[in-house]
């Protein structure tokens, strides 16, 4: 049985660096496939008749998927910029080919490509989370000014993007009519503002890793940039119902690794804001002494309690 792990991603991507670092500290055998170099000029050969023989070549290095017990991947296709526009079709072809090789690969992959794709639509994910039994904030995705006004009249409101394009979540303050006129060009997702403490719950292979976040920023991910306070501590236990929901929802989406964002209000209610199928978890793992990465690496090696 292979005992090596393959990590695929961009060098600057912090979860990639974090998992590689934890693996090194544990003395695990890990290879790294540089996604930037592969997309720029690598090649791939595989047949679905023998998917384990998939072979990737990148700058003189050769990777045979059969050599690995598992793969941790953070595939992403950068949008075409002016310098790459001519090469972009081939970059996209390499991206799709690698995605499909990982779909056909029989070993463990975290996460299998396309799992949890609903994250590309936050209102769709909100709808699915509510169907699954999570408590979700009242939401309105709208391109109509009058509907925005009616929703906002119902209480304090935050705004975010509908798509998976990253946006800074913030409170809706005074909005002038000129700015509101832009709604006609693109809908915006508005949600009732839920006050309380943030909790991030990572699910890895059926185990949960909750972290409590205290911050005076609306979007704690940008607390440092906005000179706001942030403090994170491990949460010792989750309510059993929340733990069950997180584990079962991740499983229903085919996800080994998932990150759930909650607000815990003063009445003790857990509000699920969203679920990330490719979470950047390193900042939380630092307060957990690397427990998330260890569980992830253990899963890839078939030994959960690494």
């Amino acid at each position, binding site marked *: 049985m292979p005992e090596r792990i393959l990590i695929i991603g961009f060098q600057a991507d912090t979860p990639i660096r974090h998992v590689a670092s934890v693996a090194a500290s544990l003395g695990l055998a890990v290879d790294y496939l540089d996604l930037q170099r592969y997309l720029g000029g690598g090649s791939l050969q595989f047949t679905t008749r023998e998917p384990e023989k998939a072979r990737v070549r990148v700058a003189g290095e050769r990777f045979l998927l059969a050599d690995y017990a598992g793969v941790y991947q953070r595939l992403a296709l950068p949008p075409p910029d002016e310098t790459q526009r001519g090469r972009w079709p081939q970059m996209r072809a390499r991206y799709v*080919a690698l995605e499909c090789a990982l*779909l056909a690969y029989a070993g463990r992959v975290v996460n299998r490509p396309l799992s949890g794709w609903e994250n590309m639509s936050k*209102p769709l994910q909100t709808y699915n989370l509510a169907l699954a039994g999570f408590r979700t904030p009242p939401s*309105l995705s709208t391109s*109509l000014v009058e509907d925005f006004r009616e929703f906002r009249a119902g209480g304090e409101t935050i705004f975010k993007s509908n798509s998976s394009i990253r946006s800074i979540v913030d409170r809706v303050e005074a909005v002038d009519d000129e700015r509101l006129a832009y709604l006609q060009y*693109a809908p*915006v997702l508005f949600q009732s503002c839920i006050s309380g403490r943030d909790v991030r719950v990572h699910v890895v292979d059926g185990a949960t890793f909750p972290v409590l976040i205290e911050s005076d920023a609306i979007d704690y991910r940008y607390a440092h940039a906005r000179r706001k306070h942030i403090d994170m501590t491990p949460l010792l236990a989750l309510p059993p119902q929340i733990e069950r929901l997180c584990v079962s929802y991740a499983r229903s*989406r085919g996800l080994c690794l998932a990150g759930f964002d909650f607000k815990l209000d003063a009445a003790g209610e857990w509000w699920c804001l969203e679920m990330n199928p490719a979470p950047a978890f390193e900042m939380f793992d630092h307060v957990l002494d690397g427990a998330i990465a260890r569980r992830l690496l253990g899963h890839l090696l078939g030994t959960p309690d690494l």
Partner: protein
Amino acid sequence: MSAQILLIGGEQDALLLRTRALLAAPGKRVHLVANAAEARLSLALGSTAVRTLVVVDGEPLPMAGIECIVVTQLAAVASPLLAADDQSYASAEALAAWLAFLASAPCRVVNRPSANYNILLQSPLHVRAFARHHVPTVDDLIVDGRALAGRRRRGERSAAIDLSNDQPFWLASSYAPASGSLVSLIDHDEAAPFAVTLRVGADCLTVPYGPAAQAPLRPDARAQAEQAAVTLLDALGLDLGCCVFSLSDTIARFSRLFTGAWPFVGEQALDWAAERLAALALAEQGSRHA
């Protein structure tokens, strides 16, 4: 108040245009949405006083009055009044909002987005990867141009699709890929026919396609193709689809799925599909939810 039916797809989509003509009847209002970025909407989720509606051609259509939605393609082209970067953002936002609108609509939706089916994402390779769990499927081989040239020299024949441009069906043997490009080969003899199975609701129609398309299909191939099409489309949660099967060997093997426009399907087959799609749109509620 008239019952509203929404058709979402391309303005040149022959199936949708035929279906629209069949649906035009007293008491029914049929609207075509070709550009999701132009049709404004409000999608309310959870406890809020705002109601869900779309605005098509300037007319507000509350969700409560929409009887059925048929989706063959979801596209968004943002206003040219926006800066280039803002246009791509606005398109992504419109598509994301419409995906949620379609998935959560309480009326019948043909075809509803679901965990297994994302109308925006799936390439032929992705669909085959999913299909392998359900039906016999052609094998894929992904190679670079040099390896393809070697196979051609050795006389190994199979249909090729250039992954950089995703040509439909196949490229001829003379195709020479550009340096560095990747090619997807499917295990299909270029001289063998394909079977094309249209599925609309509970009905299927199978016709030959490609080389020897004038020859009748083997009865066993037709039965295999239709059974596989129903199995696969049920797994994807789709009522409407066009499955292409390779008939290179004794088993009909799935190769491609089309849920949008079907430019390669003949007039008679399109009429057959439009009649059934119109009937499906008018049928009693009972569509699957995501």
